[in-house]
């Protein structure tokens, strides 16, 4: 019995390493040409690698307004996260702690934005928004918040499912008001879920193309809009790749920082 277990685990370890390596490749391979193009000044179609390295793509991206577009995307992501996260926390709490007598209908309604294609929704809404006279920026933020809501809600629902509601009762009998119990106990205990939900809502705003284009009427130039326009019209692969890399870097850096901080926290807890 002992030998079987030992040989079993011995076989599992290399298999796990291979799977992890394949997963890493799956994520890295699509990014490799982008990274290479971003550092190339000349790369003809037949060559396996760029013939000349340089910063032509970066210069052209800066000239095309990359910084302003990234800032706009960032603001859009922050605005969406600021709206969708608190709403998701409330909805997730109600669903996760089974505070609703009939949770089925609210669940379906909250999940619906994921089922609907943003393009089709935006196509119908743009005329309405124009007629009502809502500013494009506000309309884009509101519509994207609706699309972000399922992600924040269901992330927080899973988080609350793992938290005992009695924690709040415990806090209250130790002297915390209802609000203090939430602010000092439940929300800090749900930090990981909260950060994940905020990140997902931010990414919905950061990476959106269809809603920003159709409802914003082309007036709100965000990073995805700039990438889309470069990819569709210029034929300039260096510029397109540079824009794509620069749009990917901030979320990747944020993810790395969060993962590092979370692992440090775990390690500190066991020290």
């Amino acid at each position, binding site marked *: 019995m002992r030998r079987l277990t030992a040989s079993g685990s011995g076989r599992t370890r290399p298999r796990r390493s291979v799977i992890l390596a394949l997963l890493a490749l799956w994520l890295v391979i699509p990014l490799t040409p982008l990274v290479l193009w971003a550092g190339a000044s000349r790369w003809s179609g037949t060559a396996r690698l760029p013939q000349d390295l340089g910063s032509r793509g970066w210069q052209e991206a800066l000239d095309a307004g990359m910084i302003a577009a990234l800032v706009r995307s960032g603001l859009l992501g922050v605005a969406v996260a600021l709206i969708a996260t608190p709403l998701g926390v409330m909805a997730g709490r109600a669903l996760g702690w089974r505070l609703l007598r009939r949770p089925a209908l609210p669940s379906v309604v909250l999940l619906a934005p994921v089922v609907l294609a943003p393009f089709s929704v935006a196509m119908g809404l743009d005329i309405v928004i124009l007629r009502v006279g809502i500013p494009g920026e506000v309309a884009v933020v509101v519509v994207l918040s609706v699309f972000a809501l399922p992600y924040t809600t269901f992330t927080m629902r899973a988080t609350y499912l793992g938290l*005992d509601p*009695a*924690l709040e*009762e*415990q*806090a*209250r*009998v*130790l*002297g*915390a*008001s*209802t609000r*203090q119990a939430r602010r*000092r*106990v439940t929300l*800090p*205990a749900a*930090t990981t879920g909260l950060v994940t939900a905020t990140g997902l809502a931010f990414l919905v705003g950061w990476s959106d193309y269809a809603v920003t284009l159709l409802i914003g009427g082309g007036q709100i130039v965000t990073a995805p809009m700039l990438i889309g326009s470069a990819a569709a019209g210029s034929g300039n692969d260096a510029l397109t790749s540079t824009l794509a890399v620069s749009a990917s870097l901030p979320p990747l850096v944020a993810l790395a920082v969060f993962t590092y901080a979370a692992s440090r926290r775990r390690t500190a*807890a*066991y020290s």
Partner: protein
Amino acid sequence: MTAALHLSAITHRHPGADQPTLADIDLEVPEGQMVAVLGPSGSGKTTLLRVAAGLEQPESGDVLLDGTSVLGVPPEGRDLTVMFQKPHLFPHLSVLDNVAFADRLRGRSRPASRAAAQRYLDLVQLGDLGRRRPRQLSGGQEQRVALARALAASRRVMLLDEPFSALDTNLRTSMHELLGEVRAALDPTIVIVTHDLDEAGLAERVGVLVEGRIEQFDAIHTLYAAPKTLAVARLVGGFNEVPGTVESGVHYSSLGALVLPAAADVNGTAILLVRKERLGLVDAEATATVTGRVVEVRQSGPHQDVVVELDRAPADRRARVEVEVRLGTTLRPGDRTGVQIPGPGGLWAVDHPGVEDASQISHATSEPAIFDSTTRGRG
């Protein structure tokens, strides 16, 4: 003297329930004392604590702290705290910050509240674990931290909701010792609800809660010696129930005519209660009060219980008694034996007005004449 906590005529009904969970409960807890509420599962013990803490509202009645009604006061505003069955330590805080939680809410600085928390951690003998996270603690350690946190809240009354029931026997014993040390050091006012007689025995007085009503409120030794009702006797466990009638302080039954203690104020149809450890087994030919035949010998913790079917009972109405003996009895089923009945000091009787004919009770209870504490008392 005004009680630190007074639950006055509390009635509570869960939404949609026909019967009230608590019916007209009155309970007074003097300052510095520990009162236990003993009851089987579903008797309403936890609901009683939740009503006292303000986590549930009663249908009627009042909750008074130092004579002042706190019925309209939210849980955080009542000068009491609760330690639940689960420790409910806050997972995002260190052990020390868990204990310092109430002080921080009161606005004390972090260093000051941590210094105070450290003293309570030292008191529960976990002074070295302040920097750990709750998930790094064992079950016993978690309960100790929860106790330290409840003590550090420095409330007028501490409500303990079966706090040690999830621990194994050794840990529970050590927690009972710790509670004794804490009481000696801080003299807190405590209400503990439990289904464990040993735990209830830590308290000065015990309220026996049966189906939402306090049936008796006495010291634990009184519950063992003089239960007020059959329900209390069955909850405490270890009694032989012998049906009969009482006339002029004498109980007549298949055990014969037995003089009751003067305190047993019963008349008419009544159940004689004799604890199994107060009965003795003697040679059948000796001066035994009654004789019978052994029908079963059972192991019961560090003792043995010998079930004896009495000769005196009519053939169609078997009457049995259970006698607790030391380990190593040589008696076997089928052996004849004598049963020695104690004097008035070892007897008790309770009214049984529901049944008029004593012989019917005898027949009905002849099989389960004894209610064992290890099963009945720990429901």
